């Protein structure tokens, strides 16, 4: 970590001290973050000062610690991460909410409440979130007394009685959409209130693919953790596995060999390109422009086939192992990848002008689903969603992790915040990633691709911070006895991008929802966990 890190911290600490907010620095901070303990009664007060000092909310989760519930929240400023933690007794697990200050905290708090039984006192929205009907209101699956296999195998009743927000008025009607959709997409329910065709209110109800990732992680070793992490959200297999691997490697103090790091970055950028290609095509398909859908689908397919040939899996599952990567790349592989990059660059360079010049496509995409910069900032949006709305944050540059600090990346940025800007942003990110892949392949050093790790000490913990194609992924891992995982929490960027959809759809018309949704493309699996 360089010298210029945390330059803003003294000012924040003195501000907190002035407000009589007692902090205690934690010696076992999950690296690379610094951690401070806070009194439970001060918890609800803390975010006011953090926001005042320009800190971005980056995550909130909880864990069971010796009969107490520990709550952790992470904020970021200038690429440096700070974790605050507090503990409450399990018998009276109450503390203040961060949601009034940071709206992005709301769903994370509700998730923590449903899974661990925390009560956030002054939360503006305390409805259940992850819990549907699979367990009762008084049961908390992440507590140690809840069996991992659950209670019995009776079919879970359908989720009924969720108190959706209501909009009343003459001619206002409700459209329930999903969770089962007419296309092959993930399950999620969207409740529209519309007046004519204009959307008055949209509320998403997710949680249909809750798999108990956090519970399943408990007791796994490093390799098992990475296998699980790759399955948090199948389209971000590399990014999630990398984030978990970072957390693991930081706790065991391992240095991943240079070649292993470069190959990880190569896989991550390949994942980014594959998703961007697929989504740009899908966005065009949502407005009935199937030419582009087919062309981008073809390019993505070729890209995925190369993944399968060289790395053993189309979606790059299980390509990362603790300490490095699973498969090496030989000389022919490097040449093939370079040829792929050249071919793809040529193809997209002939395709993007078609999209740009299509009058009817522009008509549909420009001005649709506008997310203003201040809205994106308020919600803490990440990745291309934020960058298309003018928020210039890229973890690879601003936080800087190996091997990206040695590459020179392009960082496209757009201001308009509409669907067209998000498409353009992603198109330009494809070029940036192609440039990154080229540099990685040119500089690929010789040497081992992985090191063996010694199991982490009990009680150690680490943070993983990786820029997935959706944006910053934050993974918290804590280890228990025998180097086994005792807590794993992956915070997918979708936690903050999903709420943006509910905001940007306002004033748009109902038939424009699919394209707006696709332009955000939040992960259902990644937040249902």
């Amino acid at each position, binding site marked *: 970590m360089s010298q210029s890190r945390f330059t803003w911290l003294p000012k924040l600490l003195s501000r907190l001290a002035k407000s009589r907010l007692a902090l205690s620095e934690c010696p076992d901070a999950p690296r690379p973050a610094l951690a401070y303990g806070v009194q439970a009664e001060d918890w609800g007060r803390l975010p006011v000062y953090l926001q005042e000092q320009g800190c971005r909310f980056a995550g909130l989760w909880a864990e069971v610690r010796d009969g107490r519930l520990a709550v952790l929240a992470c904020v970021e400023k200038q690429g440096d991460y700070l974790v605050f933690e507090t503990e409450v007794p399990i018998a009276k697990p109450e503390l203040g909410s961060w949601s009034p200050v940071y709206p992005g905290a709301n769903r994370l708090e509700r998730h923590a409440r449903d899974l661990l039984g925390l009560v956030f006192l002054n939360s503006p929205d305390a409805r259940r979130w992850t819990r549907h009907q699979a367990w009762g209101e008084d049961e908390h699956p992440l507590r140690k007394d809840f069996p991992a296999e659950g209670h019995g195998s009776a079919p879970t009743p359908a989720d009924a009685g969720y108190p959706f927000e209501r909009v009343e008025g003459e001619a206002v009607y409700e459209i329930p959409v999903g969770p089962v959709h007419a296309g092959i997409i993930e399950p999620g329910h969207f409740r529209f209130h519309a007046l004519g065709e204009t959307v008055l209110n949209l509320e998403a109800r997710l949680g249909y693919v809750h798999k108990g990732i956090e519970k399943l992680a408990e007791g796994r070793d490093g390799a098992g953790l990475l296998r699980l992490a790759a399955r948090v959200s199948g389209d971000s297999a590399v990014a999630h596995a990398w984030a978990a691997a970072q957390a693991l490697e930081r706790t065991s103090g391992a240095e991943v060999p240079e070649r292993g790091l470069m190959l990880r970055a190569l896989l991550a950028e390949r994942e980014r390109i594959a998703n961007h290609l697929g989504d740009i095509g899908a966005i065009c398909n949502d407005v009935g422009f199937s030419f582009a859908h087919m062309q981008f689908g073809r390019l993505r397919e070729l890209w995925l086939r190369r993944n399968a040939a060289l790395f053993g899996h189309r979606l790059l599952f299980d390509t990362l192992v603790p300490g490095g990567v699973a498969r090496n790349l030989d000389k022919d592989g490097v040449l093939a990848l370079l040829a792929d990059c050249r071919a793809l660059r040529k193809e997209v360079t002939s395709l993007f002008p078609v999209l740009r010049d299509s009058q009817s496509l522009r008509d549909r995409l420009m001005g649709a689903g506008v997310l203003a910069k201040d809205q994106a900032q308020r919600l803490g949006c990440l990745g291309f969603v934020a960058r298309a709305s003018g928020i210039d944050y890229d973890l690879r540059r601003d936080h800087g992790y190996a091997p990206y600090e040695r590459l020179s990346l392009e960082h496209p940025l757009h201001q308009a915040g509409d669907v067209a800007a998000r498409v353009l942003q992603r198109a330009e990110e494809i070029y940036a990633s192609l440039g990154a892949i080229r540099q990685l392949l040119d500089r690929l050093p010789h040497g081992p691709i992985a090191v063996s790790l010694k199991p982490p000490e009990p009680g150690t913990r680490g943070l993983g911070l990786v820029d997935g194609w959706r944006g910053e992924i934050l993974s918290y891992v804590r280890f228990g006895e025998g180097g086994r995982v005792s807590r794993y929490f992956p915070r997918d960027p979708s936690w903050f991008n999903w709420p943006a959809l509910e905001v940007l759809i306002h004033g748009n018309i109902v038939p*424009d929802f699919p394209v707006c949704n696709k332009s955000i493309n939040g992960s259902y699996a990644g937040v249902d966990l």
Partner: protein
Amino acid sequence: MAASLVAAAPLDAAAPLAMNAAGWLLALAQTALFVAAAPLFAGWIKRVKCWLQNRQPPPLAQGYRDLRRLFAKRVRLADQASVVFRIAPYLVFGATILAAAVTPFLSVNLPTAAITDAIALTGFFAFARFFLALAGMDIGTAFGGMGSSREMTLSALAEPAMLMALFTVAMVASSTNLATVITSIETQMVMTRPSLWFAAFGFLLVAVAETGRIPVDNPATHLELTMIHEAMILEYGGRHLGMLEWAAQLKLLVYAVLAINIFNPWGIAHEDSASALGLAIAAMAGKLLVLGIVLAVTETLQAKLRLFRVPVFLMLAFTLALGGMLSFIILEAG
């Protein structure tokens, strides 16, 4: 269908050629061919679109296979389905077949064409649309109601434009009878009549909207929220869905045949001889192939319009048709 018309429709004096049984047989055969060819035409458009998108097209028989599959399947009805929901597919399919029966396809020398006119044809489609919209609302799902509401909104704009285009050609031919219109236009120089050009473009735009093609509606979409026609039939399955799909394909073919026969009728048979009919079949097949390519190319080049832009699109169609009528009155009449 044609047989039931014999009893129902009084034959007027203006239809002297419709008296014999052979004429009715021919009308029946032509209608059967019309209905049978509908999936083929839809399949042809799909095939050209696939080619334009560098895809392997499904076989041309796929449309028939899909229909066979749907007709073989059991019908599942929603608990709330009323009788309207159950009879709507029959009414829609029936009305569309009637519309096909009265449309001169290969020959103008038809009893069915003689006893009805363009307004009756529009009426058949309006009848079908009415029951389809009712059926969309019948189950009470949000999508069905949404589709019905959109369909009615658009039809309120599409039908006047459609009638205006037909009135223009009716004024040119001094008749609303389609057989007379076609015969009349065939003998005139279409190229020299601006009114017919206007009417033709107006008619084509309306036809795109009425048959639910891009840029107005997307027949291939899976997105419930963007659908118009598909939203209304979302709850249907089995033979009900088969009939509705077939009706939609038939409607597309009827509009294509109307566009061809009104504005470009050369080759159509005027007598019931084998050679005339053979030529008519060949000419019609060739023209449908070309029209299918034109449709597929325009659909490939464009994205779907934003829903609120569709009225503008239909307004353009109406204005073109109106322009056709005005140019007839100002430039050509008298």
